[in-house]
């Protein structure tokens, strides 16, 4: 089992001008590792991460979009896997941090801890789907995951984190949304 922040540290080494959609616990860890204007943190409602990512990927086909979603979030929007697969954005890479809990809501278990997200993504029609539970293998393969034609899905099997500090006013600061849009347009 891996740690989410360790996965993100490795992932961050491969992120250049990608738009990164991250929310809740994933956002806390990602911002801790890679604070940058091109982070999209305000999704407004749990589960919509993947849908916001699809909108960005459609609107900017010239730019890679990386979604860092939690397992509880994805369960609230499983249909988005089918929608994304049907639209088939080549520039979308979709990670789910599978820690088997609603970490931001008190650490309660998700309804079925063993749900096979990669299998669902594969059968929904994603171009490729992966699972990682060994940090060394993730480090070896993450560049390949990011570079191939999407939509690509990858499950990161991670441990629940130690209690995180959720600074929502900072994460959802309107100034961050403005900075994201400016950064996105600056890279046109």
């Amino acid at each position, binding site marked *: 089992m891996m740690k989410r922040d360790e996965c993100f540290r490795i992932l961050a080494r491969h992120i250049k001008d990608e738009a990164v959609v991250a929310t809740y616990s994933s956002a806390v860890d990602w911002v801790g590792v890679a604070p940058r204007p091109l982070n999209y943190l305000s999704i*407004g409602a749990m589960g919509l991460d993947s849908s916001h990512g699809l909108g960005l990927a*459609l609107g*900017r086909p010239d730019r890679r979009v990386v979604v860092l979603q939690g397992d509880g979030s994805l369960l609230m929007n499983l249909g*988005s896997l089918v*929608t994304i697969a049907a639209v088939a954005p080549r520039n979308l890479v979709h990670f789910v941090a599978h820690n088997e809990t609603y970490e931001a809501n008190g650490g309660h278990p998700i309804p079925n801890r063993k749900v096979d997200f990669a299998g669902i993504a594969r059968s929904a029609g994603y171009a490729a789907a992966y699972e990682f539970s060994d940090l060394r293998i993730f480090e070896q393969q993450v560049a390949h995951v990011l570079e191939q034609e999407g939509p690509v899905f990858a499950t990161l099997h991670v441990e629940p984190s130690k209690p995180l500090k959720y600074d929502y006013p900072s994460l959802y600061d309107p100034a961050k949304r403005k900075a994201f849009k400016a950064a996105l347009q600056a890279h046109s």
Partner: protein
Amino acid sequence: MEGRAASVDSPARELNGGEILTAIKASGIEYVLAVPDIVTSAGLLRPIAQDKALRLIRVCKEDECIGIASGLSYCDKRALVLIQYTGFLDSLNAIRGVAVEYKQPICMMVGLLAHDPEKAPRQSPKYGVRILEPIMDDMGIVHHLINENAHVAKIQPAIEKAYSESLPVAFLIGRRPSIDGGQSDDEEG
């Protein structure tokens, strides 16, 4: 049968799908994000699906539309969410968060399933339709009833305003839009 008789005998109360489609395109909409709705199925969704100037994204559940439209808006791409009122109600938390609290330009066209188009939505025989406008008022969402051809002129300025001021807007489709060259589709859904 009353609905059909009204649309034939009173041309002023007809709602033409082609005119709505023209207004949508004139508003700079490039993407239509939709879950099928029987009110708008024949007169809007089918023509949109065949219109090469628009990209139709069929989603599984209505709240997906809110996230997709928001992502597109950051890229300066305009989208219209085409859903049934039940889907609007199901998506309230997404609309609350994205459209209202984050002030995103989410433009929604909402079909009023089982509504009597001769009545105002607040006097609808359907409970779900009666509560729509009060909910939108409480949430501060500007809404327009599109019930006859004369109302179609509201669409373009309202969409322009939504995008220029970064605010949501909703169009309530009170009767089944007719298909260009034909009558409205009055089959029960």
